[in-house]
């Protein structure tokens, strides 16, 4: 059979599959890919939605680089990501290990750990806003009852970002913990038995059995967490509005301001393009490094 005939036959065999795929492809093209391309184009334009778009070259990027908040937003975002990894990466892993060791009420604790995930993000933010209230807030009331002085929490530029990380960790650790738990439960028990026979204590078992066996899940979740936390928006938007003193302005919050406060969609698109490039480069480098270390 000639090559064109083979191609035609393969096409005929797959026509149903293409037909079924077409609806999804159209939806993706319309609501995902087209807007992405449009966003990239918009990065080099100024629009007012009345006249035709005006091509402005790199002016939007120049404006961003001249904005002192640009550097502040990146620094804050990286700080949030760093803190979120310290807390949001280690705490769920330890929680999963503890849950895995439980013999009783495991289902109950699993539910308890997962419950915060079920709350809508804005509800979580507003709830914690009350916890953090420097006056009659839950935390300061507790601290004062214990004879300690309260903290300003969200009202001080020294503690605001850390407070947001606490909220984010609490709200998201349920999903991460369950994924770790699923990974832990795939580790064959005889590995632990062998380690125990060799005289390994709990920490050595954790380090030499648990961590290597869950390495792949750990690496994937690390990447997902970096990508997600670099796009942090809800907590600073709802809880601090970027304050106090710009200490919680993140890249996405700045992007929001450019688009919906300044109504400067060109610069907002330029910023989103920069964020996309940064995360794309990070993801590619990360995948390459982890692949190399796996080999």
């Amino acid at each position, binding site marked *: 059979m000639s090559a064109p005939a083979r191609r035609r036959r393969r096409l005929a065999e797959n026509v149903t599959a293409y037909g079924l795929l077409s609806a999804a492809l159209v939806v993706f093209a319309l*609501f*995902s890919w*087209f*807007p*992405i*391309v*449009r*966003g*990239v184009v*918009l990065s080099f334009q100024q*629009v*007012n*939605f*009345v*006249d035709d778009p005006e091509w402005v070259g790199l002016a939007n990027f120049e*404006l961003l680089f*001249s*904005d*002192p*908040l640009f550097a502040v937003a990146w620094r804050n975002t990286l700080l949030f990501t760093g803190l979120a990894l310290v807390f949001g990466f280690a705490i769920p892993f330890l929680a999963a290990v503890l849950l895995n060791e439980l013999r009783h009420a495991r289902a109950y604790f699993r539910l308890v750990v997962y419950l915060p995930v079920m709350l809508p993000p804005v509800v979580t933010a507003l709830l914690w806003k009350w916890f953090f209230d*420097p*006056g009659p807030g839950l935390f300061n009331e507790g601290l004062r009852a214990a004879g300690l002085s309260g903290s300003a929490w969200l*009202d001080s*530029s020294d503690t605001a970002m850390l407070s947001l990380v606490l909220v984010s960790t609490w709200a998201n650790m349920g999903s991460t913990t369950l994924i770790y738990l699923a990974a832990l439960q795939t580790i064959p028990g005889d590995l632990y038995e062998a380690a125990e026979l060799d005289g390994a204590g709990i920490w050595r078992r954790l380090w030499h059995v648990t961590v290597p066996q869950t390495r792949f899940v750990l690496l994937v979740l690390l*990447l*997902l967490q970096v*990508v*997600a936390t670099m*796009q942090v928006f809800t907590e600073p938007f709802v809880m601090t*509005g*970027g*304050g*106090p*003193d*710009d200490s919680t302005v993140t890249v*996405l919050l700045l*992007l929001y*301001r450019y*688009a*919906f*406060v*300044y*109504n*400067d*969609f060109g610069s*907002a*698109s330029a910023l*989103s*393009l920069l*964020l*996309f490039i940064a*995360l*794309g480069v990070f*993801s590619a480098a990360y995948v390459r490094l982890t692949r190399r270390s796996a080999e």
Partner: protein
Amino acid sequence: MKSPRSRRVLVPLAAIGLLAAVPACSGGSGEERSADGKLKVSINGQPPQTQAFERTIFDQDVAEFEAAHPDIDLEPHEGFMEVESFSAKLAGGQLEDVFYVYFTDPAQIIARRQAADITEAVQGLPHVDQLQPQLLDVFRDSGGKLYGLPTANYSMGLVYHRPLFVKAGLDPDQPPRTWAEVRAAADKIAALGDGVVGYADFSKGNQGGWHLTAWLNSLGGQIARKDGDSWKADFNNDLGRTALEHLKQMRWTDDSMGSKQLLTDADVQRMMGSGQLGMYLAAPDNIPVLVKQFNGKYEDYGLAPVPEGKGTLIGGEGYMVNPKASPEKIKAGLAWIQWKYLNPDRFDSFTQRYADGQQPVGLPALPNPDIWTGALREQQEAVKAKYANVPAQNYAPYLNAAATIKGHLEPPSAQQVYATLDTVMQAVLTDPAADPAALLATAETKVNATLAQVR
């Protein structure tokens, strides 16, 4: 790039692109004429159903206007100005033909050419020339072209608690006229004890910056000045330092501002409503809020002009016209704005409906916004006095001075500027060692950076 994680990376880019990808439709409601040949004009500013009284008034007015203008079919929409959705509505052809704005919006809207030029169309409109010129200026570009009309305004004054004045041995009919007098009065009121606070101010949620701006305006200063085509911070000077030093003395030397700080308007209104506060800076529209939401009584509150009276922060609202509207629609839209909001023939009937509905009449606010000059202002004052159901004499000091105090608009990128100045207010009110000069110098650098982004 086909994995789910790569798609996550693309989310912000797609979100902005999706909005921009909306094909622009024709202006406002799109269709020029309704089935019966009437000109369709979409308008917003319709109060929500939850504000039953205001909604009824609005709907009645729409019906009355249509009866008087049989060739126009108004299409009312709920809602006012939402900066977040403004461009999206414009891009999607959903922006009304006549749309509501706050005084902080027109400058940017005009700069982006997102409103119709009504300079010519307004020529035949009655009474526009008797509106206060500074309010009309809010809607003008640098070339003097007009893009909208003001319909209501407020200016900052001093709200005070008359019974506490009496208790502290002060004359409630002679409210403080200078910041030195405010300080002395606050000291006497705070001396009453029982947690009573003499004077309170905001320092959170951008409201601290807003009030520092009002304070500076009262001294004749301003937060930002126009420097050619750009804006520059204008508070790192003697006036700024004077304001902060005064605040610092009241807070720490006199201890007349209470120990609880980081307050917002709701906190301060609660203090005033419960009779625990002597004075705070506010616009007249605060008084109904104190009564309706915080259990206050109208007769307990007095309203004085802003201390010093060398200037005052003004705000307000008005209407602009969709840039895609046809000349016919512009004309019809302006006819509606004039008939509903700028109509001396309806002063009496409009005010009477408020009085009949047990709504407060007698304040320099709706239904009698202080937007007129000359004979029309006097005419409106007479109507207000006729139907007054709140003690209008308590607000006389404010009103008598209002016409002579220079109004200052909020600075560009107001919320960002205020956010920076919040930090200054917080430091002065929470740290006895705060250095006003250093705080203002730091804030100046940041505000200049914010103002540099204004286009």
